[in-house]
């Protein structure tokens, strides 16, 4: 190759290198909880944080306003009423009690009250106090914090898909 061609190529290569060198920017540490609208510390293990989406966060808000007094032990919201009640109401994160119950059953218990579903009359009916999506939000929140964790029932299998 002629010398001038060679020198031209070298010059081109150097400029290419120079333009591609960029200042290394500090990457943001990916925060696993940054995609969560809100978090709730696990009631059994305060170090663990459970991420909540918008609906679950609204459920958390409704829970801590209306339900926490009886369905939780003492919390920053205030001392608990739970020990005053017989039968003792289940804790909201009690997976053993709530996981086997369908969403429908829980929704009816909340909306119509305990005595309507054969449970204690101490559970008031909230259907006229809470809106339907607030009730749904509370249910979704309870499912999120359940220990042992809640598995939604299986979807209908492929034999039901319409093709």
């Amino acid at each position, binding site marked *: 190759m002629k010398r001038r061609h060679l020198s031209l190529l070298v010059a081109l290569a150097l400029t290419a290198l120079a333009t591609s060198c960029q200042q290394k920017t500090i990457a943001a540490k990916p925060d696993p909880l940054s995609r969560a609208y809100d978090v709730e510390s696990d009631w059994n293990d305060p170090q663990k944080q459970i991420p909540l989406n918008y609906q679950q966060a609204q459920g958390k808000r409704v829970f801590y306003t209306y339900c926490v007094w*009886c369905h939780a032990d003492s919390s920053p919201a205030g001392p608990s009423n739970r020990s005053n009640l017989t039968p003792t109401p289940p804790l909201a994160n009690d997976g053993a009690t709530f996981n086997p119950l369908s969403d429908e059953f829980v929704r009816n218990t909340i909306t119509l009250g305990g005595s309507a579903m054969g449970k204690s009359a101490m559970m008031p009916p909230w259907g006229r106090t809470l809106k339907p999506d607030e009730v749904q939000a509370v249910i979704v929140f309870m499912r999120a914090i359940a220990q042992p964790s809640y598995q*939604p029932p299986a979807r209908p299998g492929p034999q039901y898909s319409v093709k």
Partner: protein
Amino acid sequence: MGKIPKRLRRAFAISSVLFLGVLAVSPVKDLLQEWKQSRRDYVRFAETRPDTKQLLADFHPGIDQIWIPEMNVTDRCTTCHQGIHQASLLDVSVPQPFRAHTPMPHQVEKWGCVVCHRGQGLATEVREAHETTLAWEQPLLPVRYIQASCGVCHRGTLPETPQLDVGRELLVKLNCAGCHRLEGITRPAMLGPDLTSVGSKASRAWFYKWLKEPRTITDSNGNTTVDGVENEEEPRMPQFRLNEKELRALSAYLSSLRTGPAETAKLDPRVVAALERKPDTVDQGEVRFRQMFCTTCHSVAVTRAGETKLIGGEIGPELTKVGSKVNPDWLLAWLRNPQASMPHSQMPRYGWSDEDLYKVTRYILSKLTDPDLMSDVPRLEGPAQEEIQLGQRLFLEKGCASCHFVKGVSPQADFGPNLSNLGSKTLSQLEFSKAKIPRTLIAYIQAKITDPVSVNPAARMPQYQLAPRHLEALTTALLSMTGGPSSSGLAKLVVPAPKPGFHPAGAFGEVYERYKCYVCHRFNGYGGTLAPDLSYEGSRAQRSWLVAFLKNPQTLRPTLTLRMPQFNMTDAEAATLADYLAMVTQSPAVNLGSVTSKDLTPEAARLGKQLYEVKYQCRSCHTIGSSGGYVGPNLTNVGNWMNAAWIEEWLRDPQGLVPGTIEPRRTLPEQEVTALAAYLMTLRQGGAAKPAAPGAGSAR
């Protein structure tokens, strides 16, 4: 043909083929575009679902966009996020980007995506849409700060955005509004306390210590424990990074501010003589301190079982070591009339007898002390004139004047930059200098708040200590300040903050102002939320009960730790308040004359008792006597407390009388309502059930 040389022909052929090859690259790349891949994936995904037909019916190939020109919305996000509207795709197991949007108050088709999530709506490539790139500097807002977008239009408080509300409160509470202009945040009348006569309040040594380290709680190891304390209280005054010379100068200046009130507060010498020698004066002072519930507004550190906790309210400053701070004369004058030295103070003017005053001040000055409080302060002689002048200059330069009012000193306007547009700033508008943080707006805001010097070594902004959730809340509130919505269509939809006002005049107004009822109670939307809303108190409570309560507040709700203080008000003052409440603060839903003794019969009461105990189990939340629940108020004396008509209306629709109350609204037939009211009206403490018609009695 002519003699075109073969080489030339060949060269022409090759270059034409190459050129066509270059042209062909584009259609191939077009086919492999990201969004086209995504849509093919979606079709494949839809075929695995049970409702394939429905999903594919709503699908069409090509770019999907939400276009609302009046709101400047051109969002192509739904090209990849195809399942946004499909209710069957809500489940967490559905992979992104096909998952439906979680149910929320605003419809995606009517608002687009960028309005809340920011990012580049015009893009159909993942990186361009989500991240900061060369040509677009507004990345997606992380979901944990998404309430900031709610705040762009909703200027008032919303129950659905607690983090934003806390952030906005903190912007006032931590005095950000003192130095910075903030969109939608009104600067309250008093940020830091007025310092016009602070020289007569505390010593120069105390000022030195305070300016060096504005906290007074240290545990036995000398560690400041505010952050470890249950309330996670941040000190409202930040730390100003002052050096020795500056500390001396400022403390000298402050101790020179002695334009005190002319009123000298001297106690009756006979009272002093009588109590001086008594051994239990201090203990009695503590009893009075407790009875008057000073801790409702002021917190005091209490050590129990080796653990130090701040017990009390946040309205006034924390008082653990105040006895070592204040000048005894100042304390007397202050308790007698707070507004004399601090006109905007929220402290009520209690009715003090000289005896009470002596006892309580003795208690404060001997027990709420720390003899070692200023042991680490170097010797400070009488201040020199140069020191005072330097202090006066520093008072302005360091920004003290922006939060603390001193008569005759006008603060620098706009001491800190205007933050009303902070949320909409692009990367190129932010000065990172040498800060070792990621180059994002959120990292910038958080670095600036937690460590201003790291971003700008010459920063005048002081050093704050913040709990992590408060930092998040502040970030959210600041991100919501985008200088208003970006288009005229959106500007029409802004929900302004309600600006209630309730400033009564006359005799009631004087008492109301003297005891600062509005700091804790709300009247027609104006006031604090610490105590019950009194907008309808006249319909609720009987006048005689009101008078008794105002003179001697009792426990109504067992679980609350903050109680109404005992103001030692005179009978006339109590009567004025009770008369006003009984006559004016009435609810239109309650007709006090509608319930008479004809309705409240003993048979009805018996039925009511049964309903209370068996059918509705009201005792799960309410206490009568010694048994019951802690959630609602104690009903032991409700017959003397409430009006029957109120009770009936409450049972019919509690949320209609007090919106947001947690009493459940049941479906009670009228007979049961009357029965329950009859039963409750028989519950009276200290005296047999009055046979007189309660309705007529309380309509006075």
